[in-house]
Structures are given as structure tokens and as C-alpha cells.
């Protein structure tokens, strides 16, 4: 029957009529399958078969549409569910050039704790985050980072390593800017603004970032010279290299005392790991 159906589709496409009683047979097949369950349901299906078959067609087209939408999202956001889904920004072979690992078991915890750091160096817990400022999932994880910093104030050190994904526009430039803000001790100020205006940063790049830097109250001369300084770029490249060495395949990726967590997972998952490490 499948073969006949394809043949029928082919004939329809080539503007010839299907030469079988296929539709009638499909109807009999479906109605008779429903009959043992409920004769009333079978009756409704039988009477309104045309309506149901159109419904099936629409559903098929809709799911096809979603599939294409998913493919589009995968291409642009590195994730089939688009920018607002709970997931992570996946590095992919289509647009990424970082190489690819694809499972948390392949992740290797970083051994160096340089980067944008918050909290005491001798804290009991160290959380490292590899994040991308133009990744919607990194943005989504910000509230988690905030809550954790508040709740574990004093007993937690937080290290942010910028890991700009090449499949996001202007990700490198944005990361560089936040690094430079950190040099003036104002990384949080710019970071908040950058996440707030994430799309703008992606689309406009330096123009948007410059405006945000002013708003964050940065010394613009210092800021600009920092941006052009090869040392800053070297520093960022170092973090990217560290990310690659850790086999990062998606942002944000956290390491809580070496234990990996990919994506903005529920905060309870973070707490569970932290509390366990604290009690050990």
C-alpha cells in the first residue's frame, strides 16, 4: 500500500490521476481498524473521512514546516528549538571551526582558573563557566549565576571564561569588550547591558557595544585602546584554547569543582552538586 501511495503521489505531481481505488482502500483500512474499539468513532471517521484526511495533510505539512524551522534554528542558533528553548548553543560543523565533541562524558575540567573571577580565591567551591555573550542560553543562565553568587556568597569562587562561538555574529568582539570592562573593574556593568541588548550586539557589533560601554560608565579612551591591544586578544584566544582543550561543544558549560553541567539546567541541579561538594 505504501508503494501504491508513493506511486499515487508521483502521479498527482505529474498531473495524472491515480489509477487505483487507493483512497477508498485507505479509508476502509482506517475505519475497520477503529471499529473494534468504538463503532461510534468509526462512524464519525467514516462519515467525515474527507475532513480527517485533510486534517492529516495539514498536520503533515505543519510537522514538515516545523522540521524546516528546526533546521533553520540549528543553522542559525546551533539548536533546533531556536533562541528561547532550554538547551545550549551547540557548536556545529556547519558554521563552527572549533572542532566537535558531543557528549558531557568527553568534557575535561579546566585546570587553570584565570578569566573574569568573582569571590575569594580560597573558597571551598570553584565554579567555572565557559559562556558566549551572544548565546541566548548563556543569557538564560545569568539568573542562575546571580542566585548562586548570592546564596553561596563567601564560600564560592566564580570564574567566567569567555568562549565566543564562531556561529554567532560579533561574538568575538563582544567578548573582547567585556574583558576590557573587567580591566576597569566594571565587568558586571557592561555584562548586564550586553545580555540585555544581546540581539543588538549580534546585529550591529561595535556600534552597539560602544553605546553600551558609555552607558556602563567606562573610560572610553582606555576602553578603546584595550580593544585594540594585541594582549587582550591574546588573552581571549587563550580562553578559547582552554575551552577547546576542555572539549567544550556548547555554551554555557559549567564545571562545579570539575563536575560538568551543560546548558541552563534547573538551579536545583546546580545546588545538588554544590551541596554535595560542600558536604564532602
Amino acid at each position, binding site marked *: 500500500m505504501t508503494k501504491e501511495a508513493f506511486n499515487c503521489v508521483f502521479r498527482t505531481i505529474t498531473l495524472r490521476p491515480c489509477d487505483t481505488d487507493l483512497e477508498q482502500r485507505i479509508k*476502509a483500512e482506517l*475505519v475497520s481498524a477503529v471499529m473494534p474499539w468504538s*463503532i461510534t468513532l468509526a462512524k464519525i471517521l467514516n462519515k467525515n473521512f474527507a475532513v480527517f484526511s485533510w486534517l492529516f495533510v495539514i498536520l503533515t505539512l505543519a510537522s514538515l514546516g516545523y522540521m524546516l524551522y528546526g533546521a533553520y534554528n540549528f543553522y542559525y542558533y546551533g539548536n533546533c528549538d531556536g533562541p528561547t528553548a532550554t538547551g545550549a548553543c551547540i557548536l556545529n560543523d556547519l558554521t563552527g571551526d572549533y572542532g566537535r565533541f558531543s557528549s558531557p562524558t568527553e568534557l575535561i575540567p579546566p585546570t587553570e582558573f584565570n578569566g573574569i573571577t568573582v569571590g575569594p580565591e580560597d573558597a571551598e567551591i570553584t565554579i567555572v563557566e565557559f559562556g558566549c555573550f551572544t548565546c541566548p542560553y548563556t543569557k538564560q543562565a545569568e539568573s542562575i549565576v546571580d542566585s548562586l553568587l548570592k546564596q553561596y556568597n563567601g564560600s564560592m569562587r566564580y570564574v567566567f571564561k569567555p568562549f565566543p562561538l564562531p556561529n554567532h555574529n560579533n561574538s568575538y568582539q563582544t567578548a573582547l569588550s567585556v574583558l576590557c570592562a573587567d580591566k576597569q573593574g566594571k565587568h558586571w556593568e557592561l555584562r548586564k547591558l550586553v545580555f540585555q541588548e544581546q540581539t543588538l550586539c549580534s546585529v550591529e557589533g561595535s556600534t552597539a557595544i560602544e553605546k553600551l560601554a558609555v552607558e556602563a560608565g567606562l573610560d572610553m579612551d582606555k576602553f578603546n585602546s584595550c580593544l585594540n591591544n594585541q594582549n587582550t586578544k591574546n588573552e581571549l584566544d587563550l580562553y578559547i584554547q582552554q575551552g577547546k582543550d576542555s572539549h567544550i561543544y556548547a555554551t554555557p558549560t559549567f564545571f562545579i569543582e570539575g563536575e560538568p553541567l551543560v546548558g541552563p539546567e534547573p538551579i536545583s541541579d546546580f545546588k545538588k552538586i554544590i551541596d554535595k561538594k560542600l558536604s564532602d
Partner: protein
Amino acid sequence: MIKLDANKIKEDFPFFQKNQNWVYLDSACTSLKPKQVITAELDYYENVSACASRSSHSLGRKATEAQDSARARVASFINSNQKEVIFTRNTTEGLNLAINSLDFSRLGKKKIVTTVLEHHSVLLPLFNLRNKNLIDLKVLECDSEGLISLDQWNDAINSNTALIVTNSSNNTLGTSQPTGEIAKIAHDSGAFICIDGAQGVAHQKTDFKKDDYDFLCFSGHKMLGPTGIGCLVAKSDLQKSMKPLVFGGGTVKTVSLEKAEFLENYEKFEAGIQNYAGAIGFGVACDYLKKIGMENINGHEKKLAAVAIRALEEAGALIYGSKEQKQSALISFNLKNAKPHDVALMLDKFNIAVRSGFFCAQPAMEAIGAKEGAVRLSAYLYNTEEDLTKFKEILLKVNELYS
């Protein structure tokens, strides 16, 4: 008193062993075959497998004997002489041969009378001759019950009539005609009569001599025999003047480059190597039916017809044609609001085989008011009342889908 145990008969049909949950109600299209027929065919291929009436080796003689014996069994089944039986592929070929074998210009008359209740295999060869202007065709109409009266025949047949072609029992309503009396009317006017016995011979006792037919055609496959074999029974003296339809090997006494001298009787019409295995199976099928007795089969069928009609009435189905005049378990019907094809497909999903459409008799179906076709159930000697109980159970459910 009917002496027929359908459950016991079922045991002879390998189909039921291999397809236990099937209810086969399409025997008017083609019947199932008993193991006796299947083994007889197989036996020819395994043990004989040679040409009949040609090769003089012992295998050839064995084939000739087997074919002669088959011809004798078929002849005996319908009470004709062995020489009168011409093997054909099926009823259709028999009808074509009979209708085209007469030389109407030599007969000096060209009127042919037939009825609207005929199968396409009767109508189309006649239309072909009419289109060539070789005949004048009179087609008798039926009444709303699907019946044609003897008066209609009497009125239509006169001294200009060359031939009557009609069925003894039709495949749309399962009703029969008094063909013996029609033959008498024909002969009184000097006309020949050709009977399409595809349904009639399979379901009622048929007597070629007593009813005085000139031609009688039927198919093996509708009466437990193999497909691809049938026959035209034609009166011996008539065969002399008949023209063959196919020319070739095995039909002549001598051939020179100027002329051919044909053999007489059936040999003249059976050109080329024949379907020997089919003929042998056909002969065995005739014996099988004869042993059970056509009266018993007919009685059993009438009983089944009554049960089926009750089931259909319960479903509120529209039944075509006269119920009283039904001579076999063949019923055409439609469920209210349902297309015949849909009903057949639904029944098929529950392993019930019935036919739907026009049954190769579109003018007949239109004449009885089934303009969009109908569903047809046709039972035979191997169908039981339990078969019809299952049919009824599913039919009522299907009917509910459309209520």
C-alpha cells in the same frame, strides 16, 4: 430432502485449510477448487505432460485418453454427446465462437434476439456484428423485478429470427429463465438458440438434449474446475456448417498449398496445443458436482439465499430483483447511503469476499436500477450457514457506519 453437508464438503477444499478465517462469497465470479481437481491437474503435469491427438508414443496416447475422458465427463454432466463438446478457454470464447460461426447471409435472415440481462460476453460480440451491419439486434427489456416474460419472447421471435442468445441464469440477480420453452419458441420459428450457461450450468441441472439447445457455453472455473478451460457444446449437424474462430494445427485432415480439408466436429475448432490439464480438471469437477447432485446443491443454495436475504433485510439493504424467483444463492444489494465499493472493501477487512460494481453487465445493472453498481454475494456448495452468520454480523456493523 437435501443431502449435502457443507462442513464436510469444506474439507475437500485446500483453500479453507490455508485460509481458515475467510468467508468466500464470490463464487459467481469464480469458484474455489477441490483437491480432487487440483490433484488431477497436477497428475497430468507430473505423469503425462504430453500432446494429445498427435504423438503416437504411449505418453501421447495417455494424454489423448485423458482428454477424451474429460470430454466424456463434461458431455455426460450436461447430457450431450461427447463429439458435441468443443473445449474453449471460457464462456466468453465459447460465445464468441458460436455467435461468429454462423453465416447469416447464407441463412437468409439476420435478426438476433437477446436481453438486457446479459453479460458483456454476450452483448459485445453481438454489438460487434451489429456495427458491421451483419445482424439486426433486438434486445428484450426486463420488468422492475428483473424478469422477462415468455410473451416477450413470443412477440420478438418470428420467421426472420436467425438466433437467440440468452442466459439460463444471470449473474446479476440469480434468477433463471425457462430456456427449454424459449428454445421451443425459437425452433418453431426456425431460429437457433445459444445459451450462456456460465451461471446456469454451475448452479442448476442442465440438460442439453432435453431442453434442445443448439449451443451451450460455460466455464470450468465457475463450477469447481480450473481457470482457462470452458466449452461450447454445439449440435453435431450444426458443427458441419460452423466457421472456426481460430485456425491452426490439429484441425485438418489434409493441407496442400491450395486448400485445407478440415476435420469434423470439435477437432475443427480446437486449433493448436490445448489446455489438457485444464480439461482433465474440468472433467473431474463435473464428476464431483454430479456425485453430490445438482438438486442437492440447488436446494442448499436456496436455503442459503433465504438466510442471506433475511440478514440483508435486517440491515435495511436494498435487494435487487425478484426474491421469489431466485434460483441460486446470488444476491445483489446496496446499503443505504453507502457506495458498493466501500461496503465490499469494509467486508474485505473482516475477511469476507464479495464483489462490487457492475459485474460485467452494466446495461443489466442499470435496467434493474443499480445505476452506481451494487454489492454481490454469491454462495456455493461449500458455504455454510455459519458463513452467513459472520457475514450478517459484519454487515450490520458496516451498516451502522452509514446509518
